[in-house]
């Protein structure tokens, strides 16, 4: 029996568009459209996609930082979508998030000690003064920052260090699951690898489960055991990392991977170049949303939205005319 720490069923988030003199709803953006997936305890599910795909909205909806419009989020067997504020607060001990922008995610007026102690204050953890201080030192240790960090302010640190502080904050309440929302995208390349290593070490030491959202496919593929690809609010393919790279079935996935510039000048790029722009989520194309840019598109693709095909137990995709594998 697989132990799924998280099961997401038919999650939808729509943002209404108001218009007209009376501000009535004239349309909606389906940022997240009927998404279902599950994550096993201790694994890392990567989530990739380009602008407008909904991955950030999805990540934040899982923690109800954005309230879902419909669907279920089942964490440790319990549907958290309908929990009241008190119960949700308890749940927040187990589910945490790390944001992309290390400059915007720390309150510039608080000391690091204050920032790290706050979650413990809210949940009344490690109540003694001595206990709390030891816990703070322990957290700093886990993210490899020195003890004198506690008295300093965020503006005294670099991007990579601030991101470590954000990780420490997420760890303060001893969570089980962390949504990593583009945690390394805003960092310098040499620092990215350090933070990725840190996240991987912490996962091993503390038994954490991650949802790793990013647009850098190389990093996602490296850290994740499985990867889900999103396009315009839908998950269009999910597979284990190695399955996806070599054997992507959905044309968009293949195009996405082939678009990445490889750091090897000797490799001749037989690259698939997609035509046109990423459509706006306000006005998605009919049928399969990808058909206007798809070289494999058939008439059916223009009219009917594809159902899920199970390629294997770990590999699913939504496509009428998938890539043929040799």
């Amino acid at each position, binding site marked *: 029996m697989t132990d799924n720490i998280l099961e997401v069923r038919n999650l939808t988030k729509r943002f209404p568009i108001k218009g007209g003199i009376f501000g009535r709803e004239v349309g909606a953006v389906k940022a997240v459209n009927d998404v279902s997936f599950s994550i096993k305890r201790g694994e890392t599910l990567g989530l990739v996609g380009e602008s407008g795909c909904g991955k950030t909205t999805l990540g934040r909806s899982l923690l109800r930082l954005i309230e879902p419009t419909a669907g279920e989020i089942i964490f440790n067997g319990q549907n958290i979508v309908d929990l009241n504020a008190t119960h949700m607060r308890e749940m927040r001990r187990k589910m945490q998030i790390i944001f992309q922008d290390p400059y915007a995610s720390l309150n510039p007026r608080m000391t690091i000690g204050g920032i790290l102690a706050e979650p413990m204050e809210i949940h009344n953890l490690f109540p003694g003064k001595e206990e709390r201080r030891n816990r703070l030192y322990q957290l700093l240790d886990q993210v490899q920052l020195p003890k004198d960090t506690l008295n300093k302010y965020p503006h005294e640190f670099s991007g990579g260090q601030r991101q470590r502080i954000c990780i420490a904050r997420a760890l303060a309440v001893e969570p089980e699951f962390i949504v990593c929302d583009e945690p390394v995208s805003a960092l310098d390349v040499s620092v990215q690898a350090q933070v990725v290593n840190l996240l991987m070490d912490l996962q091993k030491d503390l038994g954490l489960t991650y949802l790793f959202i990013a647009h850098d*496919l190389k990093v996602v593929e490296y850290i994740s055991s499985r990867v889900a690809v999103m396009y315009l609010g839908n998950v269009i393919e999910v597979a284990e990392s190695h399955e996806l790279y070599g054997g992507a079935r959905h044309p968009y996935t293949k195009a996405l991977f082939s678009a*990445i510039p*490889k750091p090897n000048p000797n490799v001749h790029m037989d690259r698939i170049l997609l035509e046109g722009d990423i459509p706006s989520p306000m006005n998605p194309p009919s049928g399969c949303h990808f058909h206007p840019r798809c070289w494999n598109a058939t008439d059916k693709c223009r009219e009917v939205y594809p159902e899920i095909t199970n390629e294997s137990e770990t590999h699913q995709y939504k496509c009428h005319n998938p890539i043929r594998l040799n």
Partner: protein
Amino acid sequence: MHWILSLRANKGIGMAEKILEVKDLVVEFRTDRGTITAVNGVNFEVFKGQTLGIVGESGSGKSVTALSIMRLIPNPPGRVAGGEILYRGQNVLDIPLDEMRSIRGNKIAMIFQEPMTSLNPVFTVGNQIEEVLELHQKELSKQQRTEKAIEMLKLVGIPSPEKRVHEYPHQLSGGMRQRVMIAMSLACEPDILIADEPTTALDVTIQAQILELMKKLQTEMGMGIIMITHDLGVVAETCDDVAVMYCGQIVEQSDVKTLFGHPRHPYTKGLIESIPSFDSTTGGAKGRLPTIEGMVPSLFDLPSGCNFQNRCAHVTEKCRGPHGEPKLEPVSKGQMVRCFHPLS
């Protein structure tokens, strides 16, 4: 600086025309904490039809170098403290400002990272392309300018250019806006295009389109490109020659194949290795990524000796100051490294 010319002779590439030569460029910034040297003695050459990549992370000085070529360094607090920038043999740092203006956008053009903020939101894209023509090709009539603008939009692959020419930046997607920026920069058929992180803000499938477009236009129009980026993948794809910058200095300089195949500076090697590659084994069983320890030092607080000493796995006492800074020296044919112990 004849190493590139000799390299080309060796490779059988015809003597490409040299259009830009930067010699010992030094750029300083005055702040209330003191003066920092953002660019400290940089040398390179740009040839027609070739792309030079300048790679570096924050604080490396790559963007400041690009801005100095166009004399766009804000003064105060910055200033070019030394060196020459020779465009077709003439030092652009010495010429009067109105002569510089006639070069900007006309002979040397630049595209930036954020197309939304580089385009003026209150003018149509057509107007903005026409403005470049108005400034530098005064002999054209309004009608001719509009026609040329439409032609440029077509050249950069924008569909229905006759319609798009009347649209405003906010009506276009990020990829489209970057194409418009490219159209603006190429309207006067410049000799050199400076591209400062042109695809960093774009989605990866759009990035692929833009890089492909730039390569195609370079083949058609023959300009030299300076590609400034932190993404080694982009460098591998698009550049012929590469200069790696760290703390305001070039630490390694060679052609692209040699750089990736046989990096000699520990920083270059570290950067290349810290990129996760797709050839690794299945998830979970992957080891840690090789990293460069530590952080880029603050430009206010550079160590004496080699700037990279505190992060280098091969550091020795020699690197820490007694011999001063290492100099950029040739280490093999066509490859220069700034290191006391270049990797073998």
